[in-house]
């Protein structure tokens, strides 16, 4: 609980380890212009075996533990959860990572990747989910925060295409 989120370093470690992912959630919302704090890094990984192995290795190197309800499972559980293809919450020494897979409301990695924007941070390329995909995900959500995000993102979308 007392560990601070080091989001910049977390993103840097992922990109440096050549892990392919698309950032979704709060980080993507902020990148598109609705700047707000986020408590974790939400990402959709490339589901290829090699990529998931690199992701698992990094999460374990960062002393990751799998969050299940109120409990934490040791790093040994990370490969099983991540490779199962389901959503996995991992608490690392740099902050919480939400590895999103197999979620019916989230487009598949290939779809997200094809439309994603590349944003450089400290010289490293980060793939950020497209505004249209972000809107699609927010529309499908019932959480109050997502409703707020949706209102802001729709105003941003309108400003990009005022004739719509």
């Amino acid at each position, binding site marked *: 609980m007392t560990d*601070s989120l080091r989001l910049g370093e977390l993103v840097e470690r992922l990109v440096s380890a050549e892990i392919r992912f698309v950032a979704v959630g709060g980080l993507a919302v902020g990148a598109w212009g*609705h700047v*707000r704090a*986020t408590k974790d890094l939400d990402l959709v990984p490339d589901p290829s075996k090699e990529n998931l192995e690199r992701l698992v290795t990094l999460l374990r190197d960062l002393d990751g533990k799998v969050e299940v309800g109120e409990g934490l499972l040791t790093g040994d559980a990370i490969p099983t959860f991540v490779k199962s293809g389901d959503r996995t919450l991992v608490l690392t020494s740099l902050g919480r990572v939400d590895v999103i897979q197999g979620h019916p409301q989230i487009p598949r990695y290939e779809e997200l990747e094809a439309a994603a924007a590349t944003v450089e941070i400290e010289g490293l390329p980060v793939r950020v989910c497209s505004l249209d995909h972000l809107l699609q995900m927010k529309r499908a959500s019932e959480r109050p925060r997502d409703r707020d995000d949706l209102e802001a993102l729709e105003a*941003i979308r309108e400003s990009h295409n005022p004739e719509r």
Partner: protein
Amino acid sequence: MKKAKDKDSNDPWRLDEEVRRRRLLEDARRPMAVNLAETIALSEFVSRFAGSAWQAKNPGES
């Protein structure tokens, strides 16, 4: 009628909303890298702030 309109145009809630929307659209026009860096910095600041508050409330715990 004019009075009602003037009253409405000075409604603080509506004025706040206009300012909020204007700032949102200004941010949206900035390069994504600037917004991403700012989101990261803000998130890290809030996390440190929340962590300090938690420690102050739970002394001796980590």
